[in-house]
Structure formats: C-alpha cells, structure tokens
C-alpha cells in the first residue's frame, strides 16, 4: 500500500481531479477546480421569460445564484428531483452557477493518458459539452466542458 501511495504521490502532478456525477445512467466528470460547493436541493425561485434550462435562482449564503438543469441543458428529459439530487455550485470567470445533477458519486483522479480527447461533432447535441472521455476502473466518464455548458452558443 505504501508503495502505491508513494507512487501516487509521484504522479500526483499528472493527475486531474474530477467530481463524478450521474445523470440518468450516464456518468460525467466535472473538473474540481471549477467547483465551489455542492448543496442539497432547496427552494428555487423561478425566473420568468428565461431559457428552459434555467430553473431559477437560489440563495446561497446571501448570494443569489442562477441554477441550470444539467439534464435539460444536455438534451435529456426532465425528472422530478429525488433524494440524491444535488446542486453543484460552479464558479467560472467570477460568476457562480448551480447545476442540478441526479447524484454526486465521488472524486476521481485521472491522469492525462487516461483521458481521450473528443473531437467536436456537431451532429449530436450533447457531444458539444464534452471535452473528453475518461477511463476509470473500466467505466467511461464523459468530462464536461464547463465553458460550453455555461455559455450558450445556440442563442
């Protein structure tokens, strides 16, 4: 074990940490450097006349933060929130945004050679939001491109 730990220590620099989340039965990874907080579902105030994926705004320790449904954003059907639903608070470029996910699994470490770059394919919508695919213990994890998720280019 110690040897492995030591080994991990050596290659740590090469590894990127992701939070592994679930939408439906798919797993996605979000680079941990963008994540400010993970909170339970709470009352969301609807914002009228906004895009369908904007679920509204919440109060996070005195700040008002918009919340997106990651499902709707990714082109999936919407579901009722469940006990495992969470809001991931992303801090990007000075602004905060919450993303609703079905479940938060764990933190994973991926080294560069475990990540396969995805080349943009405009035929499928969801593809646009993925920057790469990570291989973790035999599972495939789609890594989200936060910039693409937040900045809607279809508008």
């Amino acid at each position, binding site marked *: 074990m110690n040897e492995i730990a030591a080994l991990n220590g050596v290659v740590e620099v090469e590894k990127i940490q992701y939070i592994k989340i679930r939408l439906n039965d798919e797993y996605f990874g979000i680079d941990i450097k963008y994540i400010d907080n993970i909170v339970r579902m709470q*009352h969301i*105030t*609807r*914002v*009228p*006349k*906004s*895009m369908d994926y*904007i679920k*509204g*705004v*919440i*109060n996070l320790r*005195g*700040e*008002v*933060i*918009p919340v*997106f449904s990651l499902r709707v954003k990714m082109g999936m059907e919407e579901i009722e929130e469940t006990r495992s639903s969470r809001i991931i608070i992303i801090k990007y470029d000075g*602004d*905060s*945004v919450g993303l609703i996910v079905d479940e938060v699994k764990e933190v994973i470490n991926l080294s560069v050679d475990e990540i396969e770059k995805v080349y943009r394919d405009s035929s499928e919508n969801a593809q646009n939001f993925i920057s790469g695919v990570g291989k973790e213990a035999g599972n495939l994890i789609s890594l989200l491109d936060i910039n693409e998720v*937040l900045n809607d280019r279809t508008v």
Partner: protein
Amino acid sequence: MDVSQYLDIFIDETKEHLQNLNNRILDLEQDGEDMDTINEIFRAAHSLKGMAGTMGYKRMQTLTHDMENVFSEVRNNNIKVNSDMIDLLFKCLDALEEYLASIQESADEGTNDNEHLIKALNDVLNSKNDQPEVKEEPKEASKEDKANSTKAEKWKDIKIDDTFRTVIEEAQTRGFKAYGITVYIMDSCLLKAARAFLVFKALEEHGEVIISVPSAQDIEDESFENDFSVVILTESPLQKVIDAVKFVSEIEDAVGGEIVIEAKPQVTEVAKVDDVAANNTSSDDKPAQAAQTSQPAKPEKKASAKPVVNRTVRVDIEKLDSLMNLVSELIISKNSLVSVAGTAVGRTNMAFNEQIEYLESVTTNLHESVMKVRMVPIESTVNKFPRMIRDLSKKLDKKMELYMTGEETELDRTVVDEIGDPLMHLLRNSADHGLESAEVRAQRGKPEVGSIYLDAYQDGNNVVIEVRDDGNGIDVENVKRSAVEKGKITQEQADLMGEKEAIDLLFQPSFSTAKVVSDVSGRGVGLDVVKSKIEALSGEIEVKTKLGEGSTFTIRLPLTLAIIQALMVVVGGEKYAISLGAIQTIESIKVEDVKKVQGKEVINLRGSVIPLVRLNEMLDIESLTPNADELIVLIAKKGDRFAGLVVDELIGQMEIVIKSMGKYAGNCKLISGATILGDGEVALILDANALI
C-alpha cells in the same frame, strides 16, 4: 519639505480653484466691471499660485503668476476686460488643467512651458501700461505686521461657560490641568486646515481638547485667520504640550497658560518664541484678568469670501462599499428576525416585538445615513458645462445660452462620476445638431440666441435629468432616409415606421444624421454610447421632439443602487418585489369596471384612462384568483405615463437589498434583480418601468 502627502489635497483644491476661476471668468465676460468678481478671481489665482509654488510645480506657478499680474492690473483699473483677453484666460485655464491632469497621473507637471501663453499674457500687460506691476506681497506683509502687533494670547478671550467650568473643575480634582493655548500658523502656510489638524493630533496625544475657537468645524473648513485657540485638559506640563505643538511644521508660534477656575484666574506664562520679534513679550506675567480686560475683543471673523464649498472627509469609495454591504447583511438578518417573530405564533412576547421594531428603525436609519454619505450633488459634474457651451458657441459660431437648474440634486457618487460624459454628449448634440444657424432662427422668428436647458430634479425614487433645446428638433423623415441609405432598414420598414421607432434608430450604433462631420459631434459614435452608459447605471433615456421647435432628452436614473423600500406582492403563488417609489396608489377595481379599448384592457380612474397590465400574463403563470370580482391594481407611474399592474395578493412594505443575479440568469427585461427574504427565499424584483 516632503509634500507628497498633500498631493491629494493639492489636486482637490486646485480643481476647486480652477472650477471657480472658470465660473468667475464667465461672469467677468458678462460684466467686466464687477469688482467682487475681479477680486475673487484674483484671490483664486493667488491661492493657486501659492499652492503650486509650495508643491514645487514651477511651470504652473509661473503661468498663474502671470495670469495674476493681468488680474491685478484689471483690479487696479489699468486694463479693461475684452473678449480676446477672456479667450486668452480660458486658454490659460486649459493649460493649468493640463498640468493638473499630468500631476494627477504622475505627480509631475510635465514639461510644457506654455511660453506662447505667457508671452500673450505679458503682451496684455504691456499693451496697457508701463507701470511696474503692483506687488501685493509687501502689502500682505504689512498687514501681517499689523496682525502680529495685535496678536496676543487669544486663548484668554475664550469664554468658558458653566458646562466647561464644571468639566474643568472635575478634571482638576483628578489632577488634570486646563491650559489655554493659542497657536499661530505661518502666514505662508497654504494648507492651514491640514496644519491645524496635525496640531490637534499632537494635542490629543497629551490630553483632551475641550474647547476650540473657532470651532473645530470652522477650522476644518479653513475658515479662520492664521491663529486658533484651544483649551486642553492634560496631565502633562504646559511646556511639553506647547513644544509638541511647535513640533508641527509651519507653526509660527504657540503660547499658552493655565486656566484656573476657582480662584482669581492666575496665569503662568510660558511660550517663548524663537523667530518672531513682534511677539508679545509685554503681556508676559500679566495677570490673565488684566489681559482679558485690556485686550480688545477678538475681532469678528471676516465674512468668508470663499463660496461655501462642500468640505468632505476623504474616504475610499471601497470602504463605503463594504460598509454598504455590511448594512445590507444587517437588513437581511433583521428581515429574518422579523419573519421568525411572525411565524412563532403565540410564543412571541411583547418585549421581543418591541425590540425588533426598534432594530428595524435603527437599520432603516443606518441605511439612510450610509446612503446619504454616498450621495453627492451633481453640481460637481455639471459645473463645467457653462464653459463648454461658451467654447462651443465660439467654435460653431452660433449664439447660445445654457440654463441650468437643480444642480443641487443628489445622486450616488458612482452615478455622478459616470453621468458627466453622457450629459456632455447630449449638450454637444443640442448645440451642434439641435440649434439652427442664426439665419434659420431669424426666418423662423426665434430669438437669435439659442437656448439649451439642463434641468435636474428628483421624481420619486428616480432622479431625472433633462437636456432640452429650442432648436430644430429631430427630423424624423431625415432620420429614416439616412437609415435607409446606411442600409440599417429597408424602404418598406421606413415607410411603416412610427415616429418613436424612427427616433430609436438614433440610438443604434454608428448612426449620425449630421450632414457635415464636425469637430464637435457627428463622428457616428454618439447616442448609442450615451444609451449604453445610462443603461449600465440602471437608467433610461427618452426623447421627445417636435420638428422646428426643439427636442428634449430625458434621463431617468435610480436614486439608490443597493437597498430600496419595496412593496411585496404575490402573483400566481410567487412573491415579487416592486420598488415602492414606482407605485402611486393601490386600487381595488371591480371586474366590470375594466373596459376594452382597441383590444386592450383599461380602467377609468378618477377621470384618467389607465391601461391594465396583468402581471400573471407577463410572468407566464396562472393567476391564483382568476375569477375574483375585484382586482388589486397597483398604479405605477413613469414620467407622465401610468399603468395599472394587476396582482393576486399584497404582502406589504419591506426594505429589500438588491442582489445581482449574475450574467447566467438570463436577461429578462421585466426583472431588475433579486432579493433575499427573511425566510431565506429569493424573490425577484419587478422593474415597473419596463412594464409601462
């Protein structure tokens, strides 16, 4: 002397003096004989010269010196004011402003000697007389001599009333001594208030200053001659206190003695002076009483010739922002307390509620005070416009006059700083495009001199600034034609376009109808920049125009940026806040009283027809009370237009903190922000202006 710490003061005061000079020289142009104006110009120029000299800005000093010489000759009736001279003086002021700008940037005045200006000034001087220039320095010196001879221990004139008598007696029983001290500041000192402040600071290290003559406020405002007196309570020996005072630079002298209350006042005279011969050795050792009777009463303070200027303690705006944030937090937490008290039915007691009410009034007052601290009159921004219009008048060769009202209207500091450019733009626009040439005006039977008005006033929670002219107005057809030519719109679109839409075209990027691109305006960057700037300040701009009669640009700005009084309402089960300032009245309207005009719902309220806005429809939500017999209608006002906003339920009035929703929340025009309610829920703030 290290003067860098005074740089800020220098810059501020120089700005004030320059602004003052600008205004006074404008006055002088109107009336070249007015002695008060000339004297004031002279004084301002003299102070400017002195300050520049102290700070080591030689070029600035030289230029002001030569200007001062001209003023001096004018004052002595050796030169008559003429328009060339006024032009030259304005050029000099511009040059001084350049120096100042450079100093502000790099603490260095730059290398421009402005020799042509200095030469021109000297030409003015030589043209008139060959008399040697009048030196005012010796005069001042003699005045100073006189002052010195009468200068004495003015502290003995301080009247100690019963309150202070008790304070002093009490202090004496505790071993403190009361000393009266008179401090003389050197005549050459230019930042008297700053020196006095240092003296006070020095004194406070030793004890407590209980009386000061003139008052601390007057001293801070620099409305005192070269001396002031204080009474201090201290344990230190007198000599030590006086030494501390003299340690402050540019202090000419300090004298003082003990004030003894019970017995016949006895004075221990101290203070001996090093450099001033004229000092009062004679009064040494005289009993205080004798001095008091023998001395003439302190001369009445000369009526200050300086206009009343807003004196301020300089505070970094960031500190105010953080103070404001803290107040916001406090109000949010107060709101949650209120809501806790409201929900804990049967368990709240009277005392608790009383305390909450008290807290409420404290937070409201606190908020108002912090707000007021941030408010400044728009004067500082609009002051420069008369001069600008004068220059434009020359440049464009059109006669025009600017009339301003409401300069004292206050706005948040940040808004005042930002509003200058848009206003300047609108004024230039009026001067250049608005006003017709003299011939056209004559044909139309208008007075030869064109009028431009700048009016500011408060309207509810908004401040309105209007720029108005009696010029040509906007030629809508011309605007449309120009838009078609530029390919902004098609001919068909133009034909269908109403007047309002056509005027809106003016606010499109790179749109200018000026046929000739002039130096003044018409470069195609213009109204769109004005508009975006005003919108960035959460304001609005509107245009009204009548061809041949003139146009009015109305800017509407929110008074407050952070915390407002709001009316909380329910629409379709959701809570919304509406700024109370936008609401005129709340009416209960019977459903059968709602009429339809051109397919739109209106109500007739006390003689005026007001369109109804069903908020639930605007906000895409089902009304809670679709079949109610009576509608709750908020009558909202924007300028001279009204609208009736239909809501489901009223909650009540509340002080809310406006929070930004960030750029990812979509940009719904109806929502101007969000706020956090007492229970932690977020409520959106409806922008009543956008609904009308």
